């Protein structure tokens, strides 16, 4: 069964009168990667939390299969929507396998124990994210790229339909960024709906089917296919600086770079 997550004219404010974003409409379906992009402070992460039901919209609504998200119980919600925050700092030592098993919580609850089936699912998620070799390692000793894969495995263990990821590649090198996005692409292909917050416009251009561009005035500036959103005009307005867009010579995707502010010399001195 495909699940549809929808935001309709959603707005959120941490303090009354100060909207972080307003009038955002968006729907996510199986098999697509939707990127949330925009400058710092434009409300991408907050929007992601509203989409996964951790925050309630101030105005508008968020629905899952037509029903308001807040009418679902926490566990019901977590069995469809899986949320991966930007920073995960465990306070206790756990093995990779234990970390992945934590993802079974929405299915077994506060009083249930791990059944053989839960362990099988955990093992499958470990295989899906190709972290078999790390299975008995201490999570805290893993590298950034390994951690992200294991965290993905642990939210996949929730058996969700839609993944909501907050900057999953922000601390990774260029190789691991591509690896994670390729993994996301494969997961989308397998039928997951994916929403990903990212600062990397080039990766977004390359991997996301649709983009939503938020701007500093807390409105949705544009939404649609990458080549309609990632234009010099829209990006320059969103980031309030000169953004250039050309074409990636290999993939044909938009290639984005920023001009240095006036009065500085962006070229390398020798």
């Amino acid at each position: 069964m495909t699940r549809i997550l929808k935001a309709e004219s959603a707005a959120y404010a941490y303090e009354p009168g100060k909207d972080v974003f307003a009038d955002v409409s968006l729907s996510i379906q199986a098999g697509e990667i939707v990127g949330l992009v925009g400058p710092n402070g434009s409300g991408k992460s907050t929007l992601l939390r509203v989409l996964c039901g951790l925050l309630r919209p101030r105005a508008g609504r968020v629905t899952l299969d037509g029903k308001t998200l807040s009418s679902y119980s926490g566990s019901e919600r977590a069995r469809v929507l899986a949320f991966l925050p930007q920073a995960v700092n465990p306070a206790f030592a756990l093995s990779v396998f234990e970390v992945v098993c934590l993802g079974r919580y929405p299915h077994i609850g506060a009083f249930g124990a791990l059944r053989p089936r839960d362990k099988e699912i955990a093992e499958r998620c470990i295989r899906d994210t190709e972290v078999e070799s790390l299975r008995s390692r201490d999570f805290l000793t893993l590298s950034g790229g390994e951690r992200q894969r294991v965290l993905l495995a642990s939210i996949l263990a929730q058996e969700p339909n839609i993944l909501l990821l907050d900057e999953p590649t922000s601390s990774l090198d260029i190789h691991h960024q591509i690896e994670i996005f390729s993994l996301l692409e494969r997961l989308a292909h397998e039928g997951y709906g994916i929403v990903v917050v990212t600062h990397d416009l080039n990766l977004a251009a390359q991997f996301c089917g649709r983009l939503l561009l938020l701007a500093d005035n807390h409105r949705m500036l544009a939404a649609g296919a990458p080549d309609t959103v990632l234009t010099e005009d829209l990006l320059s307005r969103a980031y309030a600086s000169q953004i250039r867009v050309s074409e990636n010579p290999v993939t044909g995707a938009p290639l984005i770079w920023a001009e240095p502010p006036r009065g500085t010399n962006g070229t390398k001195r020798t």
Partner: protein
Amino acid sequence: MVRRVRIPFVLAFVALSLATTLLSLLIGTETLSLGQAWQEWRAGLSYADAPVLGILVQQRLPRTLAALIVGSGLALAGCAFQAMLRNPLAEPYTLGVASAGACGAWTATVLIAGFGLPRAILGISPIQAFAFLFAELDILIVYLLAARKERISPSVLLLGGVTMGMLANGGILFMRYLADPERVVMMDRWLMGGVDVLGYAPIKTLVIGVIPCMLILLAQAAKYDQLGFGAEIAAGRGINVKMLQVTTFFVGSLLTAIVVSVVGTIGFVGLVVPHAVRSVTGSRHRLLMPMSVLVGGGFLCFCDIIARKILPGETPIGIVTTLFGGPFFLYLLMNRRFTDWET
């Protein structure tokens, strides 16, 4: 290396805890013989005519029960606070509950002496009542400081608790200054903590007050695993993080306030026991918490044996737990058991 569950050690902890509990019934000023107690019971003697059975039931049993409940309760509250605050140095007294309780006890003492406050109101000693009320007041103030819309701020909770604790210590010094010297000695003794309870009335208070709190904390074990891994990812999995924090905070503090008001301040149990247990069970709270209950009870029975048999006279148990717990905690530190907290 991830700490696997070390089963032989876990079993050794279980055996040791049960053994010290049993021993604390038999060892004391006089060593009792279980066989003789059994014979006296078979003979149907009244406690007055049965020297061994009498001591066992009327003196040793309530004392052992008090040590068991207090030790297990403090250890469990320590586990819960460490998970809630995501901090290795958290313990039941971190949030100032013990100091506030002691301040309350001192205030009551001064009021009894200075204003003729009766020594018991409705059968409750004002010293215990004030200890409890002050501890609850501390909890409320610290909570109001730290409560936020979405969750409680662990750092404000810690800072607020430490500040309240210092404030309460200031209050204690002031009350000591006001009190007459004879009472100072008496109160100092009370504050050092003791499970040398008289009869079963304090046990009733402990059972009614502490056991339900322990059951509520134990029921959160799976949620503490999630919270320990990450507060936001736990929220994403459907856990009401604020509810979990509020429950832990109030139930754990209530437990501690009751314990302090009945037996005084017995330190280090809530800090050392969870750490020692974690080193053999790993971090899964499903095993860590019940084991801490068992080991906490056994540890306090052990300290009580030391207090009444090995050290001179009736040494207050709070001194023993600190003299044993402190070096043991240093040993844990030296073994770098905290590498997993350095994030």
